[in-house]
């Protein structure tokens, strides 16, 4: 009697003809082992192991699925494998770049005086000495840091008022007029201007207005502004658009003028988004190389004057140290300095990006409910 009541383990009709839930893990395990075995035969490396295992995994899972579930499910599985594979492939360069910069950049960054000295007076003979006799690598990026800082600050001072006012025009005064539409369209087109063309424009403008061969930090700041303004306009416009209309109407109902409403109600409400947008725009232009290369030249000494003389910046410093090492016969110290500067630049950009996110979160207006 009890024997007849023993439940018979039978798969439900609903899950019949499907792979068990553990199927992907099972196939993954087999694929990893097989991949390791194959790679052991031809010489092991991590990238090859991942690649071979992924291919075995995809073939195994899709094949099994085709046998059990039919071709439609198998196609679905194949698509999933490809999409996940695409994501993993996209991560590879990210990690590779960050790893390369960390490994190569740390020795340069940890060099004493790297952040506090310039390249003034550092010649090839010092580099030769450091390679041949093990003397410490001289020279640093202080002049480039100062240049990057001054040029970026000047570009921000130019771009933020222009960009913010334009965004205000588009949202508050534009009313979808032809002019507003044209501005929106051309701002979008401007985001696509190649950075080197922006640099050439600034150079051509100052060549024509001030005199041929004018290369200063200010020219570079103008070039960067051309790249920065559209970004500021777009992000500020988005932020101003989401300010609730009730706030404006409440202010108008109290008899407040439109310009005071905008300055005292609309912009303060959107300020967190605007600030984070500006920070992201700074992060974008701080790493630009080409426009500075054609507008500010490259200096080896400290220059605090953006309106006179050539100016160094972090990106151009990296570029010149790689392309024209200080000592052509011993490029190693130069490439160490270049990687150190690259690490500093990446840290700056990442801090700005994180900062933008923090600003957006911390100062976000309480939307209620």
């Amino acid at each position, binding site marked *: 009697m009890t024997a007849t009541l023993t439940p018979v383990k039978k798969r439900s009709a609903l899950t019949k003809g499907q792979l068990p839930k553990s199927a992907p893990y099972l196939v993954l395990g087999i694929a990893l082992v097989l991949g390791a075995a194959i790679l052991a035969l031809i010489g092991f490396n991590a990238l090859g192991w991942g690649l071979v295992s992924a291919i075995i995994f995809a073939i195994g899972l899709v094949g099994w699925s085709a046998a059990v579930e039919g071709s439609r499910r198998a196609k679905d599985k194949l698509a999933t494998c490809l999409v996940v594979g695409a994501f993993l492939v*996209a991560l590879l360069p*990210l990690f590779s770049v960050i790893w390369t910069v960390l490994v190569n950049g740390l020795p340069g960054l940890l060099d004493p005086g790297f952040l506090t000295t310039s390249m003034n007076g550092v010649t090839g003979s010092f580099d030769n000495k450091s390679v041949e006799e093990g003397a410490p690598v001289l020279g640093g990026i202080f002049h480039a840091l100062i240049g990057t800082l001054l040029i970026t600050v000047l570009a921000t001072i130019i771009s933020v008022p222009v960009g913010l006012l334009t965004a205000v025009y*588009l949202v508050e005064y534009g009313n979808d007029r032809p002019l507003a539409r044209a*501005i929106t369209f051309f701002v979008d087109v401007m985001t696509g201007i190649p950075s080197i063309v922006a640099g050439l424009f600034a150079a051509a*403008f100052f060549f*024509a207005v001030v005199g041929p061969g004018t290369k200063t930090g200010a020219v570079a700041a103008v070039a960067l502004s051309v790249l920065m303004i559209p970004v500021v306009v777009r992000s500020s416009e988005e932020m101003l658009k989401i300010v609730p209309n009730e706030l404006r109407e409440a202010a108008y109902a109290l008899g407040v003028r439109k310009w005071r409403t905008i300055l005292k109600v609309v912009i303060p409400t959107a300020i967190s988004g605007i600030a984070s947008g500006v920070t992201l725009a700074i992060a974008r232009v701080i790493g630009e190389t080409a426009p500075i290369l054609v507008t500010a030249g490259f200096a080896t000494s400290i220059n605090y004057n953006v309106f006179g003389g050539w100016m160094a910046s972090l990106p151009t410093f990296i570029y010149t140290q790689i392309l024209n090492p200080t000592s052509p016969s011993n490029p190693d110290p130069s490439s160490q300095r270049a990687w150190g500067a690259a690490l500093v630049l990446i840290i700056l950009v990442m801090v700005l990006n994180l900062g933008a996110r923090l600003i957006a979160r911390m100062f976000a207006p309480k939307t209620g409910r």
Partner: protein
Amino acid sequence: MTTTSLTKSRGAGRAGDKVFSAATLAAGCLILAVLFGVALFLLIQAFPALVASPDEIQGGKGFVSYIWPIVIGTLIAAVIALVIATPVAIGVALFISHFAPRRLASGLGYVIDLLAAIPSVVYGAWGAAFLAKEISPAYNWLASNMGWLPIFQGPASATGKTILTAGIVLSVMILPIITSLSREIFLQTPKLHEEAALALGATRWEMIRMAVLPFGRPGVISAVMLGLGRALGETMAVALVLSSGALTASLIQSGNQTIAAEIALNFPEASGLKVNTLIAAGLVLFVITLGVNMIARLIITRHKEFSGAN
């Protein structure tokens, strides 16, 4: 007292309104003027090179024969970048919009956006110091096994600093642009279309093919064109990675050059007519990218109007 403050504020307020709206209008017009100015000043400075006698231009055969090999080189590099980046970017966008667990999706999107945050000169340095070295065995393999194809004709470059390497670096740089725009478009697919497809028994892939991809096609096309615009104008990746030379069909030999890299490499030391020649090259690049970007933006704007999404 109330009346005086009201009357006082009226005059100031009215003037303030006028000044403020005029200021915003001026800022908007300034942007249009800048874009116009870019074209104008490039044209002014490029003019001497365009009218100079052929033997004064670098190469001695006139501006056209100077510019066309590097225009072709620019297009080759951009096409390589697009061919690699487009499928991967669409895959990543689909992964984030429809495959990844909801809670992870925005974080994963941020990770991909980090790719866009890395400065171009760092990509260039990475491409020159790491990628070129690692990839040159693959070029040797291609040269010996696929050498009958003109694009893989050997002997492969020993340093790996070829137009193909530059194209790969470019593809990494344009990937986040294509991804983020496609992702936005895919997320806008009407939920009802997706659910209808699933309710009819479609698998997830069939649902994507029936509902998501047809809806997103114009957006993806314009995203790819924006990526193309970026790839055409990108300077550092090519300037640092490619060891340039004359126009060659083989992608795995050193050779070829792009407009942007040509300008960056030569402008700092240029003088006289050479400056004008390089600015003229920049003008050509500007016109090409402007055309590509305007077409992409027009597609997006049209798509916005009839889809009702904004």
